[in-house]
């Protein structure tokens, strides 16, 4: 939740849904504590629903774009243009038998998928869709996401080990190796952005990029960091070309081999939520978050409207949400296109790329950013 002092700071800019909701509740005769308690679950449920709907859209896009790239039609009969196909997939998984192999460790086997999914959903805590449109503007913001994403390999290793299956074990080990290797360049790329905005908070990072619309986005100041971050994000999500933990030609399905029904659905959901989350964070860190290519304040000024007018604020917030989602899904589209463009790398190539290419370049990028920050404090957030 946004704390009260932080609220006071940002109350001038943008919508304050929490404040107005609590005011309305209090005017109905509730105590401030009760009003706050009533507000608490609303953004959480909303973000959870947004994440799941985002996954459904993502699965549909993945199937349709894959089909188009391969000159097929793709799902067509479940709903208009097959939009209900992900729902059908989910329902099928819901009704499937939940098998725990006889020689598997039941507790770890069940805990694995949960441990994979929970940190991913928890990371949505820090994804901003607007000035006040996030669950919590925690001070450590983006660092929380990096910390949470390192819980995931434990879950993967756990499920791979508990399955008592050689493919699962190999897949789990690969997933752990991959996640650990790519976490470092990822963190270094994020560090360069953090250094420029002097804050770990995602809201501050976006605000630092909102000066001159598209020109002030971080991608122009951090092109190398952007590429490193995107490659690492793909590796963290186990997307092609880095999907070797679940390489079906070698490992059947990696750590997912023994899973079925709802436990498999958790993995499935987790990987897609992670992809959407990574795309959202790329848009937050490098593509100006909720910012419109031309600053909304300028547009309002040209149209002779006050930024604080209620209607303008509602429009600004909606534009912000649309822009964040649009940027994220453009990146998702790019990831899907990349899936059918590049072949899978080998495990040695993967580790080579991570340790011998991305890590040094990320370090150099960080040092260059630091020196540029000292040399040109105006342009690089002194």
């Amino acid at each position, binding site marked *: 939740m946004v704390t009260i002092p932080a609220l006071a700071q940002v109350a001038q800019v943008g919508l304050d849904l929490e404040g107005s909701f609590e005011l309305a509740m209090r005017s109905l005769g509730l105590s401030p504590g009760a009003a706050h308690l009533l507000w608490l679950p609303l953004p959480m449920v909303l973000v959870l629903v947004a994440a799941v709907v985002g996954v459904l859209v993502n699965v549909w896009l993945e199937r349709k774009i894959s089909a188009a790239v391969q*000159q097929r039609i793709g799902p067509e009969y479940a709903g208009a243009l097959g939009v209900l196909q992900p729902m059908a997939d989910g329902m099928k998984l819901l009704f499937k038998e939940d098998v725990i192999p006889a020689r598997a460790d039941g507790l770890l086997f069940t805990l694995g998928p949960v441990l994979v999914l929970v940190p991913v959903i928890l990371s949505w805590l820090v994804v901003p869709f607007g000035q006040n449109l996030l669950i919590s503007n925690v001070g450590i913001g983006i660092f929380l996401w990096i910390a949470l994403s390192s819980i995931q390999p434990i879950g993967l290793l756990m499920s791979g080990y508990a399955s008592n299956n050689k493919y699962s074990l190999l897949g789990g080990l690969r997933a752990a190796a991959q996640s650990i290797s790519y976490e470092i360049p990822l963190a270094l790329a994020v560090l360069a952005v953090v250094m420029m905005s002097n804050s770990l908070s995602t809201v501050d990072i976006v605000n630092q990029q909102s000066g001159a619309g598209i020109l002030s986005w971080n991608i122009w100041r951090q092109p190398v960091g952007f590429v490193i971050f995107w490659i690492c994000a793909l590796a963290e999500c186990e997307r092609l070309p880095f999907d070797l933990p679940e390489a079906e030609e070698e490992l059947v399905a990696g750590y997912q081999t023994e899973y079925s029904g709802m436990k498999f659905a958790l993995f499935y959901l987790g990987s897609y939520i992670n992809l959407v989350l990574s795309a959202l964070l790329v848009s937050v860190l490098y593509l100006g978050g909720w910012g419109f290519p031309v600053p909304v304040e300028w547009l309002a000024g040209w149209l002779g409207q006050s930024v604080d007018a209620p209607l303008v604020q509602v429009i600004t917030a909606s534009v912000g949400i649309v822009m964040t989602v649009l940027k994220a899904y453009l990146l998702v589209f790019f990831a899907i296109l990349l899936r059918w463009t590049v072949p899978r790398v080998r495990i040695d190539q993967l580790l080579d790329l991570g340790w011998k290419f991305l890590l040094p370049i990320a370090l150099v990028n960080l040092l260059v950013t630091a020196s540029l920050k000292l040399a040109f404090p105006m342009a690089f957030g002194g």
Partner: protein
Amino acid sequence: MFGFLKKVGDYTRDAVGAANYLAQGLGVTFDHLRRRPITVQYPYEKLIPSERYRGRIHYEFDKCIACEVCVRVCPINLPVVDWVMNKATKKKEFRNYSIDFGVCIFCGNCVEYCPTNCLSMTEEYELAAFDRHSLNFDNVALGRLPTSVTSDPAVVALKELVYLPKGVMDPHGVDPSAPRAGKLPEEVLATLPQATPTTEETPS
């Protein structure tokens, strides 16, 4: 010093080259997005099998003389020719004929060698069954003619790529009577110089 710089230069060139190839590949996949689907929406659309398609075998019981040539030319002696010798008339009494399409490899040898042409290939290829024993066709089942793709009202019949008119790639909406690209055998023959029969070529 220069050796090190050369290494760095080569490394950078490799990285840029790899990025260039990646961009080219993305261009190819992106270009495919705007192309029309080339797939056939199978249960609703079907391709018309080619003239010499080797599908399920058709058999005419009345023409068969139970010579068992089909059995002998079959790689695995598959056709079952069930006859008994009628001692009184000293003639074969034909009872049953069957081919098991779960085992048949559709090589067409039996059709090729049948002396009375009672065997022939159909264009039927949808032989899926719940029980493999139901693929063992007896002479009644073998005598049924399959529904032709072109005459089935529930199916949109599509021409295969080589049967389309010149320059056409999409079989949808092509006039069924439109001639295929290239010449038919008789048209090719018509262009050849007429061979005059000579006396040497026709010995006694």
